[in-house]
C-alpha cells in the first residue's frame, strides 16, 4: 500500500479534509472516498472527458490529477454546479436541445461547457466544437450538444 497523505481543499464550496493514498487520482477520491458519483470514469487516461471537473475555475480531467494535488485548491464538480444560475441555464439547454441520450458523457460535457462559457461568453459553433474536443459522446453525434451550448451563449448576448 502506498503512503497516505492528509489534504485539505474546498469541494463545491465546502471545506474538506481527507486522507488519501499517494497513488490515488482525483476521480477515485471524488467517487470512492467522498461518494460524489456525478463525475464519471470513461477511460482513466485523459482521453474521454467523462471525468471533467473544474479546479480553481479551470476544467481538468480528474482521472489525470493526483488526489494529493488537490491540497489547497478549489474543486467544482457537476454536483457543485447546481447553485449557479448560468449553470442552470446550461443544464436546461442540454435538456431542451436533446443533448442528452444515455447521459454518461453529460456531466463531463456540462463541466467543460461551463468552463468554455467562462472563457468565451458568446462562442460560435467552431469555438464550441474545439472546446469540447476532448469530450467523447458515443450517442448524440455532438450536434445537439453544440446547439445546446450555443443557445446558452446567445442568451448571454
Amino acid at each position, binding site marked *: 500500500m502506498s503512503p497516505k497523505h492528509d489534504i485539505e481543499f474546498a469541494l463545491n464550496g465546502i471545506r474538506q479534509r481527507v486522507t488519501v493514498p499517494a497513488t490515488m487520482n482525483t476521480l477515485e477520491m471524488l467517487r470512492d472516498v467522498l461518494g460524489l*458519483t456525478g463525475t464519471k470514469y470513461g477511460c*482513466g*487516461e485523459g482521453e474521454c472527458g467523462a471525468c471533467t471537473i473544474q479546479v480553481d475555475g479551470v476544467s481538468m480531467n480528474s482521472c489525470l490529477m493526483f488526489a494529493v494535488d488537490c491540497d489547497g485548491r478549489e474543486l467544482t464538480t457537476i454536483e457543485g454546479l447546481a447553485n449557479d444560475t448560468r449553470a442552470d441555464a446550461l443544464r436546461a439547454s442540454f435538456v431542451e436541445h436533446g443533448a442528452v441520450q444515455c447521459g454518461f458523457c453529460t456531466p463531463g460535457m456540462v463541466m467543460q461547457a461551463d468552463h468554455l462559457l467562462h472563457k468565451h461568453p458568446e462562442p460560435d459553433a467552431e469555438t464550441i466544437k474545439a472546446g469540447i474536443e476532448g469530450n*467523447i459522446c458515443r450517442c448524440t453525434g455532438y450536434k*445537439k450538444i453544440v446547439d445546446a451550448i450555443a443557445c446558452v451563449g446567445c442568451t448571454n448576448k
Partner: protein
Amino acid sequence: MNVVAKKPRTIPESSLIGTRIPKMDAPEKASGRTRYIHDINLSGQLYGKILRSARVHARIVAIDTSAAKALPGVHVVLTAADVPDQRPIGVARDHFPLKGDRVRSQRDEIAAVAAESEEIAAAALKLIKVVYEDLPVIADPEDAIKPGAPLLHPAPAGAQPAGATVAHRGKADNIAMRFDYAHGDVVQGEAESDVVIEDTFKLHYVTHCCMGVSGMIAEFDASGSLLMYSNTQVPFLHKREFAEYLNMDPARVRIIQPPIGGGFGSKLDIYPFEVICLFLARAARRPVKLVFSREEEFLASPTRQPVLLTLRSGCKKDGTLTFRQVHTLHDNGAYTSWGATTPFVMMQTFSSLYRVPHCDYHTVAVYTNNPYAGSFRGYGNLQATFAIEQQMDEMAAAIGMDPLAFRLKNAQHTGEVTGQGMEFKSCGFTDCLNTAAQRSDFSRKFADNAAERNQPGHLKRGIGMASMLHVGGGAKIYPSDGCGTILKMDDFANVTLITGASEIGQGSETVLSQLVCEELGLPISALTVVNNDTAITPWDVGVHASRTTFIAGNSAIGAAKKAKTKILAVAAQKFGCTAEELDLRGGCVIKAADGEVVTELSKLIRNLHFSDKAELVMTTFYYEPPSVHQGKDYKGDVSAAYAWATQVVEVEVDTDTGIVRMLKVTGAHDVGRVLNRLGIEGQVEGGIVMGQGYALTENLMIENGVMKNPNFRDYKLITAPEIPEMDVSFIESMDGEGPQGAKGIGEAPAICIAAATANAIANATGVRLYDLPFTPERVYRALHGQTPKLYWKPWVPAA
C-alpha cells in the same frame, strides 16, 4: 347532458405527435444525479476481477491460486476446477465462463477473485500462476477453412469427469455457422445481363465503445434467490438463461436495470464476466460488484463482425438489375455470439433492397483465435450495404446512367413482395432517394465533381449516395416478439406506465409516455415510467432490432386505449350520455363535438375511488405483431414493417495526404411517422456520426489474435470538430401497423454512411476503395496506385 357548467370552458384539439419533447430523464442526467451501475454500491459488497489469458491459443497445463487465496482481504478465488457444474454459454453454447483446459483468445477468462477492494482483487490476480502450452494460432479466417486446418473446437479428449458438461462435443471443422439462400436462378440472370461486375470487399473490426463500461452487481439472499443489477438489453430472456447457468429456478432470478451508459447492441448476449460475477457472489455469500476498466472493455467486449465478401451482380443496358451472387466469410472469433447470425440480416439487403429477380447467397462464419463478434447497431447491414451500394454505382457507371436514376429504376415500392417473400406494406424508398438527392443537389454535384476531378489541385470534392432497408416493426428472431404494458392511474389522474421495454438511452420512456398521453389527453408531466425491474414489469423480448417504438409503443397504446374506454364508460354513466359523445383532452373529460369541458379527469377518478362501487383505473395489454415467420429457406417476412433511408455524403479528399474530410450528410429516412422529433433527430445524428467513425477512423487492430489498440488514444472515435453538417429529413409513410404510423429508427442511420463515403471518394478521385476504414494511409496508397485489387475467391463448401 345534465352538466352544471358555470362558464363552459372548451379545450381546443392538439397533438403531441411530431413535437419536440425533451427526454424525461435528461434533467437528472444533466445534473449528475443519475446512478449508473458504477455508482451503485451495496453494503457488504465485494469487488470481483477476472484473470484473462496471457496467450492467444494455448493449453492450460496448470493453475496455482494458493498465493492469491492467502492474500489478506481475498474472499474467493475461482477457476474452472472450482465450478465443475458450469454450463456452456453463448448463442451456440460453445464456451464456458471460466476456461479449464484451453484458451482460444486473448480475452479468455481463466480465474476470478472476489476481495474487499478493487486493489486487493487486482493484487490477487497477479499472484495467480498459470502454465501454458502454446498451440498454433489461427488468425486468418481463410486459413481456418482450409482443409486440414487445426481445429479450434475439437472433440474433448478422453473421458469427462462424472457430472461434467462439455461446451460441445467437438466440431470436425472450424465452421461456426452457415447460411445459404437463393431465389430465382442466377445462371439465367447472368445470361440475361449486359453488364456483370464482381468485387471483393473487406470489412474490419470495430467495437461499441459505450461510454459507460460493462459491469454487474450480483447478490443472493438468505433463501438463495438472486438479485442482479445488470445492463442487459434483454432482461426477460436472460433471467431464464442465467437461471439455467446456475441450475436454479428462473422464478428466483430478479434483474434490475440501472440506467445504462450506452448499448448499441453490446448487451444482447450473456458474457462470461456476468456468469463469473454470479459464481463469485454465490461462493462468497456476499454481494459482488464486477466492473470493467476501459482496456478490459476493449479486450472483452464483442465487436462488429469482420467480413470478407465477394459480390457479383449484373444488369441490363436499360438499368434493370438481373442477378446478384454473394459469398461471404465471417470471422466469428473464438466463440459464437450474435455476430454469427448477422448474415441473416445481410441476406435481406442483398435479396430485397432492390428488385433482384435472381439472388444466390452463401455465407460461413468460421472460428479463429480472434475476439468474438456480437451484435452491433445495424447487425450486418453496414457490411452488406457497403458492398451493394458501391456496386450499384459501378454498374450505373458501366451503363452510363446517373446513380440516382439507376437506383430509382430498381427501388422497391409499397405493396411489393420481394423474391425473398418480404412484403412492403409501407415503403417510402423512392421518396427517400428523391428527397436526399434534391436536398443535396446530388446529380449536379456528382457530374461537376467528376468533371473537375482532373483539374489541378490536391483538394477534391466528392458526393456519394447509399440507401438501406432494415427491420422497422420488430423482428421475429425469437418465438415471440411481444411486449406487455401495465397502466395505472392514480386519483390525481397521473399515470404510471409499467412497460417491459428497456431504456438504453434511446428515449423509449419518453416516446412511450407520449403515445399514452396522446390517447389519454394528458401532459407528459402526468406520466411516470417504470421499466427496469423484472419483478415489476411485464414481459418483453428485449431492446434490439429497432423494435421498441413499434412493439412497446403499440403495447402502451393498447393499454391506454383500454384505460380510456374504462374512463369514458364511467363518465358517460355519470353524466348521462354515451361514451362516444365524450373524449379526453387537457386532463379533462370533454364533449367530443366541441371540446367543452365536462369534468376534470382527476375529479372523476377520485369520485370513482370513493364511491361504493370503488374502482381503480388499471389496465394491462400485450402486443404481439401480426404473425410473421420465415421458413427454413428464409422465405417470408421477418418484420411487421420495414424502414428505408437514403443518405448522401459529401467529402473533401486531400490527394497529397489521403485525408478524407466528411463535409455534409443529407439523410432522408422513412420512419413511418415522426413521434418525438427531438428524439428521432438525436437517433439519426448519433447514427450518422457512428457511421462516420466506421468509415473513416475506427479500427480495432488485431494482429495474430492480439489487440493492439485497446484504448481511446489509438482507437480513434469521432470528436466534435470532425462532425459533418447534417441535414435530416423524415419521410412519413404512415405504416398501418405502426403506433400512430411510426416505424423503428434505432439502427438505420448508421448503415449507409460507409458505403456513401466510398462512393463520394470515388466521385472525387475516380478511385474506388473496397476495404475499410478510409484512413489517410489507405486512401493515399489507393490514390497512388499502391493497392492491388482485392480478390477473395469464394469458398465452395464440400457437398
